[in-house]
């Protein structure tokens, strides 16, 4: 019983970071109706910005965090300019494949800068786990959860209380109608990419600071986790993305505890598959037209 509660708590904390990754994915997917496979690798590039500062200039934790976010935003905008902005309507799959090609590019760029397989990443906090009754809570996990919740709150406020958020939601709901009411969709998409990359940057920083190491494979990891959480939560739904992340985290921790790491991943994919087959809209999703069928 204690184990169950403990694992659920751990799952929620890890799931919070998945939720953030899914959130960034959702913002991009929402405004573009296109899949950005390079999403994770742009975050990885941000992480490498931070790692270079940390290794070669001895930067502190906050400076590293800032570098991760800035790096992610810069590479995110690069991806938008190259893979999304110049693609005509109806070329959604070309955008997706293009973003995959740029993923390969970013990964090799990272390896050229820092050629080793793994590098250390500065820890969030060091210290023993907090004991709350019979439960153990790692302080860095707690910070990760708090950070994720704070960021989610900021995103929610930005979406529902600002002009930018209004425009963003208008584009997500209907790009043509958004154009007609005077939203500058092209500019907004760039801003959305930047915002999503920043969200991803924060998520990536939190995850890596808990892991205390970074590899070029982090890009793929982030893309996959974000994608799974988004699909479980439901396409185009912001609360869905967070919820999907939490569910994925809880499922992973429990299955890891019960059956080990390989079965954990098996379970995660199984949950995803089951959701898609039984409930393609995900937890909170709706059916929106996806510009991915190649004739779109």
């Amino acid at each position, binding site marked *: 019983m204690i184990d169950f509660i403990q694992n659920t708590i751990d799952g929620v904390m890890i799931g919070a970071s998945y939720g953030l990754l899914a959130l960034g994915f959702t913002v991009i997917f929402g405004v573009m109706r296109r899949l950005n496979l390079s999403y994770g690798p742009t975050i990885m590039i941000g992480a490498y910005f931070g790692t270079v500062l940390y290794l070669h200039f001895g930067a502190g934790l906050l400076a590293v965090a800032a570098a991760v976010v800035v790096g992610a935003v810069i590479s995110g905008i690069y991806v938008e300019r190259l893979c999304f902005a110049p693609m005509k309507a109806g070329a959604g799959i070309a955008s997706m494949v293009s973003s995959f090609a740029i993923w390969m590019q970013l990964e090799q760029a990272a390896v050229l800068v820092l050629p080793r397989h793994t590098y250390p990443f500065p820890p969030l906090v060091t210290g023993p786990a907090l004991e709350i009754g019979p439960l153990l809570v790692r302080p860095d996990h707690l910070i990760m959860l708090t950070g994720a919740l704070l960021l989610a709150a900021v995103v929610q406020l930005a979406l529902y209380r600002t002009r930018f958020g209004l425009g963003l939601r208008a584009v997500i709901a209907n790009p043509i109608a958004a154009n007609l009411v005077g939203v500058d*969709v092209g500019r907004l998409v760039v801003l959305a990419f930047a915002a999503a990359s920043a969200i991803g940057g924060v998520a990536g920083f939190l995850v890596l600071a808990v892991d205390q190491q970074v590899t070029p494979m982090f890009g793929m990891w982030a893309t996959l986790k974000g994608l799974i959480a988004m699909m479980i939560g439901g396409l185009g739904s912001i609360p869905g993305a967070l919820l999907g992340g939490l569910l994925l985290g809880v499922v992973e921790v429990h299955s890891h505890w019960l059956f080990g790491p390989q079965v954990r991943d098996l379970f995660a994919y199984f949950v995803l598959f089951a959701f898609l087959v039984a409930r393609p809209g995900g937890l909170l999703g709706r059916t929106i037209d996806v510009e991915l069928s190649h004739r779109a």
Partner: protein
Amino acid sequence: MLDVSDLVTTYGKIEALRGVSLHVEGGKITCLLGPNGAGKTTLMMTIAGILRPRRGSIKLEGTELVGLSPAKIVSRGVALVPENRLVFPEMSVRENLLAGAYQRRDKSGIAADMERMYARFPRLKERREQLAGTLSGGEQQMLAVARALMSRPRVLLMDEPSLGLAPLVVAEIFDIVAALNRDGTTILLVEQNAHMALKVAHQFFLMEQGRVTFQGTPGQLAEDEVIQRAYLGTRRVAG
């Protein structure tokens, strides 16, 4: 007020507009009639900046609109109520109206205009916190009109406002069109329902196969003939 001249818009190699010229007079209701596929919606989308013309010009009181982004065109004073309404379904009625004022920065003016819309469309006021996607067709049409008006347009373009609505609701929509015009709004109206349109229009144009084939005022042509040409095209009527 709005001058379109020699407008050509293409989809790939297909010319949807083959040199359209028309003039919309300020303060009047101008109606555009024609069979399906005549290019009416293409014309509206081109004026709104969603489609780029191959050539030609669109002038609003002498300033060129061709080449401007849709957002710029809205801020110059042209608003389109699109075919099938296209409200933002997951946003509330209030947020839809706010989105309509996206180009404006005057908060108090926006608030005042919102109240004006609620006064004109009491049903929107009742449902102001309801999601737009849950409104009836007629209510969505009202919302689309109100949303367009929130940008304070000098010219309001309306594309098939009666599409898919029950006859009673259609009558209501046309009452609104007439009332808006009485208050001084210039309107360019695309309509399939020629009978209703000719009742409110001050002048009308007939379009066929991407060209304007007739222009005049209601009464200049027998309504039957207008309707016949609007639905079937000249050729078949003539021959």
